[in-house]
């Protein structure tokens, strides 16, 4: 059993995946595995992953979205601790073992570090970097370190579209699992032209649907508890 599994869901990320893998392999880690879960890429993502180094395990599936890709990555992982990385993110050089030490020191189930955004180089001429260069604490998969047994305890990841972090972290909360805050930048998140458009208040329609999913899950659980207690 490895101590850490890094799960990278990937879809058409050939331009950035190599840099992402470099940043993970540069960590001071000896007992870890990297799993690239390719979600039906139509570009050279698989080739980039396979050619990168011998330590990268590549799993391919037909395109099912990031949630299914993460789920498949979890199923294939052997690490006691799980970390996730988007296929275009870059890990901070000193992320590990610092984040793992923090988690183990406090005996925590999970912890989230800070994220810092950066403009992908193609955009440098179009936007000023002060739009996005800030360190923030966000509940995201990319900044998360979690014990595998916790993930197994809460069950299959909700399949709820692009804003999957909302039902996932809500489920942790509903299970009484505290996510500690690790005050160190652990990941650099790439900002593209397209996701810049989400700044400034564009409607985040996925959020409402994700919240609705959380509410319906909770209502269903409440109904089930009533039936269990009083009968149908």
């Amino acid at each position, binding site marked *: 059993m490895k101590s850490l599994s890094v799960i990278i*869901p*990937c*879809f*058409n*990320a050939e*331009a*950035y995946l190599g840099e992402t893998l470099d940043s993970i392999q540069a960590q001071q880690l000896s007992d870890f595995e990297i799993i690239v879960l390719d979600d039906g890429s139509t570009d050279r993502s698989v080739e980039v992953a396979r050619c990168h180094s011998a330590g990268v395990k590549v799993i391919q599936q037909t395109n099912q*979205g*990031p949630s299914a890709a993460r789920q498949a990555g979890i199923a294939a992982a052997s690490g006691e601790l799980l970390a996730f990385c*988007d*296929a*275009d993110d870059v890990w901070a050089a000193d992320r590990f073992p610092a984040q793992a030490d923090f988690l183990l020191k406090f005996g925590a189930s999970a912890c989230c570090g800070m*994220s810092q*955004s950066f403009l*992908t180089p*193609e*955009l440098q001429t179009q936007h000023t970097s002060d739009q*996005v260069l800030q360190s*923030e604490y*966000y*509940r*995201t998969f990319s900044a998360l370190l979690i014990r595998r047994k916790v993930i197994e305890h809460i069950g299959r990841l909700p399949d709820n579209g*692009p*804003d999957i*972090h*909302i039902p996932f*972290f*809500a489920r942790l*909360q509903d299970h009484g699992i505290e*996510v500690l805050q690790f005050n160190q930048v652990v990941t650099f*998140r*790439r*900002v*593209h*032209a*397209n*996701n*810049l458009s*989400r*700044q*400034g*208040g564009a*409607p*985040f*329609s*996925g*959020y*409402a*649907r994700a*919240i*609705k999913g*959380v*509410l319906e899950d909770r209502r269903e659980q409440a109904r089930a508890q009533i039936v269990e207690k009083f009968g149908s």
Partner: protein
Amino acid sequence: MQYVLTSKQISGEIIDDELIVIDLDRGLYFTSKGAALPLWTSMLAGCDVDALKAELATRSDDPSQFIAAVDIWFATFVEQGILRPIEGISAPLPDGFLEGVSARELHAPTAEVHRDLADILIYDPVHDFEEIGWPKQPKA
């Protein structure tokens, strides 16, 4: 009387039978059902709220109680900093905007305020997955 959203970080969306209003700056969300759905939609279209209330109240068994409930509903959003009243030229009520909606579906709304997901909703708005690829390549 009309109302507008106070911030671009606030959005409201109807999902199935429920209105979900999210304040991303504060990580709050509000849920409402019943008459909240046509009220919210028509309000955002610039319709006069008093005319809306009057039209909806005709479907209620107790119009005065219904109107009082709607007033409280709007007041909740104003107190919470979600809506701001404005005066201006109102848009007419859309023709047939209640067509096919039963009286049962138009029960008086209440606004429930939720703070349980604040840590999650105050979230990085600059990174997301795209249907055609993660990340989506910038347009040439």
